[in-house]
């Protein structure tokens, strides 16, 4: 083994504590060290994925105590895949924002990068941890760095968005604690595998109610329908790359948490139906709301919420194909939505309120950015040969295999709306005349590299989906096999 999952948490935290010191000596270090750390995390995740695919799941215990006693980190094909995705995106976000707002002073930029790094770390922690309370701690790490990052720009209305986020987040964390305590009071353990094993012992009523609290608490971060009022505001007001980080990293972690609950911890068949219902409502409301947006980032935000609804639906199908499709969707959504946020922020750079009409005629001024935005739009609509098509196909195939004909119809009808609002923007980029004479900002070279990387991934996966389908397949198998998870965590010999 080349490394250990615990380094995903230890190294970034170490770096976060070191950065304030090195920043006093060498100012650029506050920007470079986070990048190095994120690159290290990505490399580590790749090397561990290689190990995992040969030797099976890594269960790493903390402080030398075997699972139920100690906290453990589980690096399985499933969690490893998400880790890889998140760290990659984290690195991309760093790369994109390396020269971001150079005019901002030293101290905020230090805070920005520390918060960004810990946002990624927290999300990775949520995914890797095998302990329910530890998950709560990581969720809070993610939330607090999220609040900080959202209100990074002092001149925008960002504090308002952050406060809404905090309001919801605080309520959510309260109910998360209640749910954890209900489970603890009944089973006397906090380890997910242990809980899953003992779950049949629990009183049915308490089981239902605790799951309800869990859904409320995690649903806030997962942006499910009535709990996602904060999300569009945050996406709009946070710096552009942070929108991508939220869509690509934080939400993924929250979805992971809810999936882990339903697939591993609880043994309700009905929970899958709940997933489908919630996902469907979220999908419909978000996509219909996105149709009438007049601000670009808000539109992207609602679209992102809608896609998460689709992911929930795919997980709710409950078969291996469904999980495969959901993971594929998560992957695609992370890449594509980041691409859209990255390129979209340059299209409406420095514009007040970021109206969609500001993109008019940008195709002439920012050709590469516009092309990338177009590729992203086409991909997220699900047009072949871009990557979005394969995931949409996977979702529909999975739904069809479970005989959910009406579900397919609804997904497809709503997808048409999605196509409409994205194409409206693309049409504006190329076929409308730019009215006002405001200056446009050319993307800096690092931002361009990040966008092009993502664009290439979209194209490559579109032409050759098998590049990741092996990972997805193993991940789906891993998630479906609940017994194996319990066995691997509880019988680790250390």
């Amino acid at each position, binding site marked *: 083994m080349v490394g250990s999952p615990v380094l995903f948490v230890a190294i970034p935290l170490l770096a976060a*504590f070191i950065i304030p010191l090195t920043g006093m000596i060498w100012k650029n270090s506050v920007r470079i060290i986070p990048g190095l750390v994120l690159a290290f995390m990505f490399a580590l995740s790749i090397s561990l994925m290689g190990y995992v695919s040969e030797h099976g799941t890594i269960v*790493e215990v903390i402080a030398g105590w075997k699972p139920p006693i100690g906290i453990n980190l589980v690096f399985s094909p499933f969690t490893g895949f998400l880790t890889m995705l998140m760290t990659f995106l984290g690195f991309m976000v760093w790369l994109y924002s390396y020269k971001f707002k150079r005019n901002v002073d030293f101290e905020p930029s230090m805070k920005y990068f520390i918060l960004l790094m810990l946002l990624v770390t927290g999300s990775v922690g949520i995914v890797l941890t095998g302990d329910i309370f*530890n998950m709560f701690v990581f969720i809070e*790490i993610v939330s607090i760095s999220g609040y900080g990052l959202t209100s990074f720009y002092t001149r925008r209305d960002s504090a308002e968005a952050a406060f809404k986020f905090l309001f919801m987040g605080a309520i959510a964390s309260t109910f998360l604690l209640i749910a954890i305590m209900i489970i603890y009071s009944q*089973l006397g*353990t906090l380890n997910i595998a242990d809980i899953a094993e003992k779950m049949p012992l629990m009183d049915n009523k308490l089981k239902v109610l605790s799951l309800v609290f869990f859904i409320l608490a995690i649903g806030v971060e997962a942006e499910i329908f009535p709990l996602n009022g904060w999300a569009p505001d945050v996406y709009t007001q946070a710096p552009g790359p942070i929108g991508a980080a939220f869509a690509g990293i934080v939400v993924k972690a929250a979805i992971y948490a809810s999936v882990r609950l339903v697939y591993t911890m609880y043994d309700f068949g009905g929970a899958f139906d709940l997933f489908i219902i919630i996902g469907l409502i979220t999908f419909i409301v978000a996509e219909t709301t996105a149709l009438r947006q007049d601000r670009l980032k808000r539109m992207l935000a609602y679209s992102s919420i809608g896609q998460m609804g689709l992911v929930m639906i795919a997980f709710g199908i409950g078969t291996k194909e469904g999980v495969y499709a959901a993971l594929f969707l998560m992957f695609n959504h992370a890449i594509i939505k980041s691409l859209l946020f990255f390129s979209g922020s340059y299209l409406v750079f420095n514009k007040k309120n970021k109206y969609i009409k500001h993109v008019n005629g940008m195709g002439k001024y920012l050709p590469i950015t516009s092309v990338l935005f177009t590729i992203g739009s086409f991909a997220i609509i699900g047009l072949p040969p871009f990557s979005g098509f394969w995931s949409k196909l996977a979702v529909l195939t999975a739904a069809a295999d479970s005989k959910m004909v009406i579900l397919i119809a609804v997904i497809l009808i709503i997808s048409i709306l999605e196509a409409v609002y994205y194409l409206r923007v693309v049409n504006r980029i190329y076929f409308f005349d730019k009215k006002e004479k405001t200056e446009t900002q050319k993307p800096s070279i690092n931002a361009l590299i990040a966008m092009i990387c993502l664009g290439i991934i979209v194209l490559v996966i579109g032409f050759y989906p098998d590049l990741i389908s092996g990972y997805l397949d193993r991940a789906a198998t891993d998630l479906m096999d609940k017994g194996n998870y319990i066995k691997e965590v509880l019988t680790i010999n250390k």
Partner: protein
Amino acid sequence: MKIAIILISLGILGFYLMDIFFGIGFGVQHFSNGVKDLYLSNSKDILKVSNVVTSIVVNFRGFDTLGEVTVLFLASTALGGILYKKRHHVGERSVLFPASRIVMSGAKLLFPSIVLLGAYVFIHGHLSPGGGFQGGTIIATGFLLMLLTYRNYSVSHNRLVYFESLAGILFISIGLVGYFSKGSFLENVLPVGNMNDLFSGGVIGIIYIAVGFKVAAELTGIIYTVLHEKD
């Protein structure tokens, strides 16, 4: 109307919560093979730490504590970011009146003993109730007292950063030492000593001291930042 909806939903929520917790019952243990007994016995037999809560916080669930420390660090970082102003905007501290002489003298008198108490609490965290968080908070209240009392009492920002960072680095370094020497993050690498001794529990004491310093520095930093906020 809105209030009515809220009240009704709160009523229903309250009913369900009471229902749940009455069902659970007070002072009853529902599980037989939980981790509680394992913690108690391991703490006594292996770690030789008398305060089981401390051994849980620092060792068994030390990862939580690392996260917790990070949350505090994040809070102070985020706070700094949120309330950031360019240097020349920094205003006076918003203490309206200077305190009376009695308060000033009393504060001066109390401050060292408060810090000492805090230090005592976190150093003895593994023996008696208390620990790094509690001690750190106590120290921070000492600084709060000074900041409230003296209009121009200032804490060196850089010094806070040093404490904060070094304490954090110490925590993680101990963890990494455990990882590299024993193969598990935060694993105890020092001899555990005898129960109820000051030098018992291996790295637990050191970690709690680091936590204490870190919490004290961070809370002081947070208080300092907020107090310096003025329109």
